[in-house]
């Protein structure tokens, strides 16, 4: 699969039509999706939409920057008229009544929406194995997990089905599968991309972000989807992302921070070697490598597993068996609620709902929820301090490469630990990107770059330099 930039140029130069491009994507999906299970559903109107873009191009109309480009959508982002399941039985049959803001913006830019990608149920998971629609497989080795929760979107790009897919990242759900599948995945600063029309998991942490083949493509897509939206009160009015063609990929004199708390025992040695080699490249190019300290980072995962479930239990309260999808009639209203939710949700979702009910319940609120929010403050302060000393923080995205399907499925805590390097960026509300960084044990390694809030430009600049190396 070529990059968005390359495909866009071919479409503009009329050496390729969008119909040809979409047909070739659909052919590949037809051949390989059954084995990989990246897509849950394919849009039957994609070819007609592509023809319409081709017709408009022939007519000389002004077209958007993503005109004719096929894009896949994680199944927790609303597309009007499409079913939406969030990977759960709970929403089976529910049709989206409106478009998410990001979908509205992609359509306005001419993108062709190809279909809905598989995901962990309600985005809760790190391996795309908790989906009601079966596990997604890693295209580099089909016996391995693709990471999660946006595993379907990561695989759709890594397998060459589409040049771009949208995901959502609450604790690493874009970056970690990007890392395990060897593609680029960006979690924007909280507030940069509207969450309107994203099925909420943890509202203070959720952000929609793109999977692409290159950092430049990620910046291109961000230009389209970001920006203030009056339907999301937490979206921020900002100068938009610098156009990728104006970014100077250069790291000379740049200060790159390595958090000492991250580079400790427990990291896979071969993976660590790839990261060390990347650091040497930065050094050779004139970047200044500095050790920084994030003293509270070791508490991030514990704080995350209080903050996120607390918000989850509240957000998923709306799934009552009346307004959406699955319904199991009981003898009274309370029975209907309990039956519907007991039958409709899978085990991981129930686990997190119950954890959140507990941490918010009378007598435990101060000890858990309040404590976790205070620690969130300390984590944010750590990052604010560190990012005064350096321009960007470099870490691995994941402590290991892709693991065997099923290996961590029955051990939630071990599964949670695979997000140990990613949750901090969500808690601190800063942007972070995962970029391919070679292989270990024959599987992709991801390099994570974290920057100051709303300074995605720095991540693009450094990332574009790194991928050219």
């Amino acid at each position, binding site marked *: 699969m070529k990059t968005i930039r390359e495909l866009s140029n071919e479409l503009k130069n009329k050496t390729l039509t969008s119909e040809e491009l979409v047909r070739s994507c659909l052919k590949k999906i037809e051949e390989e999706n059954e084995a990989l299970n990246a897509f849950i559903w394919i849009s039957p109107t994609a070819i007609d939409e592509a023809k319409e873009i081709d017709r408009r191009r022939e007519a000389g109309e002004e077209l958007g920057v993503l005109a004719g480009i096929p894009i896949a959508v994680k199944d927790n982002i609303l597309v009007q008229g499409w079913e939406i399941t969030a990977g759960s039985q709970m929403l089976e049959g529910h049709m989206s009544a409106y478009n998410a803001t990001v979908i509205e913006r992609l359509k306005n830019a001419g993108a062709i929406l190809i279909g809905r990608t598989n995901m962990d149920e309600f985005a809760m998971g790190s391996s795309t194995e908790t989906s009601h629609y079966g596990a997604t497989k890693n295209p580099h080795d089909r016996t391995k997990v693709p990471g999660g929760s946006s595993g379907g979107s990561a695989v759709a790009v890594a397998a060459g089905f589409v040049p771009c897919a949208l995901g959502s990242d609450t604790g690493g759900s874009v970056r970690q599968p990007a890392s395990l599948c060897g593609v680029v995945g960006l979690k924007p600063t909280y507030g940069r991309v509207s969450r309107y029309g994203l099925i909420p998991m943890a509202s203070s942490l959720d952000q929609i972000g793109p999977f692409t083949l290159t950092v430049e493509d990620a910046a291109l897509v961000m230009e389209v989807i970001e920006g203030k939206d009056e339907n999301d009160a937490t979206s921020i009015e900002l100068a938009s992302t610098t156009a990728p063609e104006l970014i100077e990929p250069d790291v000379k004199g740049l200060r790159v921070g390595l958090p000492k708390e991250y580079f400790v025992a427990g990291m896979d040695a071969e993976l660590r070697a790839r990261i060390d080699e990347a650091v040497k490249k930065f050094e050779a190019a004139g970047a200044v490598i500095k050790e920084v300290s994030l003293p509270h980072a070791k508490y991030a995962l514990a704080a995350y597993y209080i903050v996120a479930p607390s918000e989850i239990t509240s957000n998923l*309260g709306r799934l009552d068996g009346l307004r959406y999808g699955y319904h199991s009639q009981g003898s009274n209203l309370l029975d209907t609620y309990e039956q519907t939710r007991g039958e409709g949700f899978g085990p991981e979702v129930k686990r997190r709902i*119950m954890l959140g009910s507990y941490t918010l319940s009378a007598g435990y609120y101060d000890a858990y929820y309040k404590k*976790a*929010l205070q620690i969130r403050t300390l984590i944010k302060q750590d990052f604010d301090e560190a990012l005064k000393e350096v321009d960007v923080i470099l870490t691995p995205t994941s402590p290991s490469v892709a693991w065997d399907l099923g290996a961590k499925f029955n051990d939630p805590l071990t599964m949670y630990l695979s997000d140990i390097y990613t949750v901090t960026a969500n808690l601190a509300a800063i942007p972070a990107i995962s970029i391919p960084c070679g292989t270990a044990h024959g599987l992709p390694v991801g390099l994570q770059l974290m920057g100051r809030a709303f300074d995605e430009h720095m991540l693009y600049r450094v990332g574009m330099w790194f991928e050219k190396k």
Partner: protein
Amino acid sequence: MFTTDDVKKIAKLSRLHITEEETEQYRVKLGSILEYVNQLQEVDTTNVPELQHAVMVENVFRADEPSIDLDERARAMEMFSARKGDLLEVQAVFSKDE
């Protein structure tokens, strides 16, 4: 760390029907997660403010005008589990003997 009764109480608070078998599984697994998150107690957070939300925006207003189009309203209503015309139907909230 958790008793069976604790799990049943949390399930009730969560509006989740769970089986006896699930109760035992959740007792063990929620217990181990809770044990892990308990490490937060070792951090001194005296006088540390809570980070309630990621972006510091306050009082975001917009005009109180209906913006939803009628088709969108109809599409949302169509998804409701039981309806009579434009009315949404639910079971009684209170019963006579309560």
